[in-house]
């Protein structure tokens, strides 16, 4: 990837530098720093209300940070930086009442790009072509002007695995060619496609790194038992965060000692193992931790 023309040095395509965004007394984004470099796929994760959407809006130049600064291609985001950026929103951002050809000519006129080649269906209304083709079209349009940075919002939610693999092939090919990619998702399979993850909770960036690095040594407990229904009921009654994995009983954010004691006081036996937590369980642990504010 070539150096950034405005800075003369190779640097991140997108930088959030201690960004805070407040709406009245509500702090939606709280002192978040992150960056996306050429050729890397960065995943932005967080529960609803974690601040992902607001952060993305500041990165796209659609909202101005209250404090801190955002740089896209080395400058404050505006319409010129927007031209170097491809965006696929969750709702895909297509015009359902226009045909495929009309959507293409609209997007390509806006970005002064060459129309992407899409077989058949040119004359059909976008609303009628089905979600799979709509998604392909949205991707093709976001890529038509060869953006240096791609921003994707839950790009493959609801897509069957083979089609999802094909879409990710496209995303990886872009990254291989030097495009930086920022993906917001709460879909664990998408998170696993990313090189690096940034985890947000209550407006703050609370963890960053690979999936393994973020999970760290957080564990969950699994109980192997002959009578999982009774075990489940007893642990549930004890107020523990119990779920089911097949016919094993699983508890996030709970030590094996706690589980053993709860089993004992219910007069039950079972083998308790500590296992590595999932990314989701780790997110729950972070989200449920008492706020220190």
């Amino acid at each position: 990837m070539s150096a950034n023309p405005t800075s003369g040095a190779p640097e991140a395509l997108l930088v959030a530098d201690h960004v805070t965004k407040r709406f009245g007394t509500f702090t939606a984004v709280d002192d978040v720093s992150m960056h996306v470099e050429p050729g890397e796929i960065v995943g932005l994760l967080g529960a609803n209300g974690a601040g992902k959407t607001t952060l993305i809006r500041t990165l796209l130049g659609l909202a101005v940070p209250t404090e801190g600064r955002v740089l896209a291609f080395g400058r404050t985001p505006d319409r010129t930086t927007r031209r170097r950026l491809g965006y696929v929103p969750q709702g895909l951002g297509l015009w359902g009442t226009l045909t495929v050809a009309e959507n293409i000519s609209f997007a390509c006129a806006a970005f002064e790009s060459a129309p992407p080649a899409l077989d058949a269906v040119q004359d059909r209304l976008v609303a009628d072509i089905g979600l799979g083709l709509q998604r392909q079209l949205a991707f093709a349009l976001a890529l038509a002007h060869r953006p240096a940075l791609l921003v994707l919002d839950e790009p493959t939610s609801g897509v069957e695995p083979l089609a999802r693999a094909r879409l990710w092939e496209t995303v990886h090919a872009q990254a291989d060619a030097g495009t930086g990619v920022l993906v917001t998702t709460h879909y664990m399979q998408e998170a696993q496609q990313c090189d690096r993850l940034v985890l947000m909770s209550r407006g703050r960036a609370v963890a960053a790194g690979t999936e393994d690095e973020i999970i760290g040594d957080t564990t969950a407990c699994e109980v192997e038992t002959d009578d999982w229904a009774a075990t489940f009921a007893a642990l549930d009654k004890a107020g523990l965060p119990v779920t089911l994995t097949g016919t094993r009983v699983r508890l996030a954010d709970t030590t094996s000692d706690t589980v053993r004691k709860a089993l004992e006081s219910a007069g039950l036996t079972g083998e308790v193992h500590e296992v590595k937590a999932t990314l989701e369980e780790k997110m729950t642990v972070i989200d449920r931790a008492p706020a220190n504010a």
Partner: protein
Amino acid sequence: MTHTDTAPMAWGTNKVTVTFGNTTALREVTLDAIPGQVTAVVGGDGAGKTTLLRTLVGRIRPQSGQVSAPASTDCGFMPTGASGVWQELTVDENIDFVAAAHHLTGRELARRRAELLTAAGLEKATDRLAGALSGGMRQKLAFCLAILHQPRLLILDEPSTGVDPVSRVDLWRLISRAAAGGAAVVMSTTYLDEAERSSTCIVLNRGKALASGTPQTILTHVPGTVTTGTAPSGPPELSWRRGRQTRSWHAGPARPGEQPILADMEDTVIALALADQRQES
């Protein structure tokens, strides 16, 4: 699908075929709904998940095959998306409305309401309009409505789609609890990790069951060979990316020098879809 001695067949579909005009939405699909178990129906948009669930609850009549389900008063159905709740009613009014339909009143209703809303973390949101809830809270309310009358067969159409990870963990706990209480739970999902956590699952693709059984059975019956590397080891249409790794698939047994990997559910479902494509062409 295999049955163990301790899991008697209760309800389900047997080789049902459903057609809409010229489109075959389901082709000879068999699904078991077993008390105390969670059966996951996995597949993407248009795979036939909703059609299968609606056929199971008797809302769609199949062209052929058999359906067995308890009386409608013993079924709980949670439709997909926002349609599972009444947006203009508050959380409490939603409960009242569904309770009235089931003739649930007095102390019994008070007990169910308190129990479900607390478990769903909605006990402080009783006065809020359902339309103003977050996606996760709304889905949890829809779940509470479907299970209010303690149905023996609980059918959930994509309960976790669009729900954030933290709320998904809550939802999964509610679903687990329903199964632990003895209900037969059938849920559709596009999330493969939910399939891995189910007791049994069925993988649907374009109206056809590509595989069914326990997640373990499905994982141990991957068709052909899956390998991993930094580049495709065969035709690109038979390979896919997992992060920085590239998986490749071929229909035969492992070739000399090839190191097949232990495929997870994601790789397995892709391999099944590729094998199915190959068979059809």
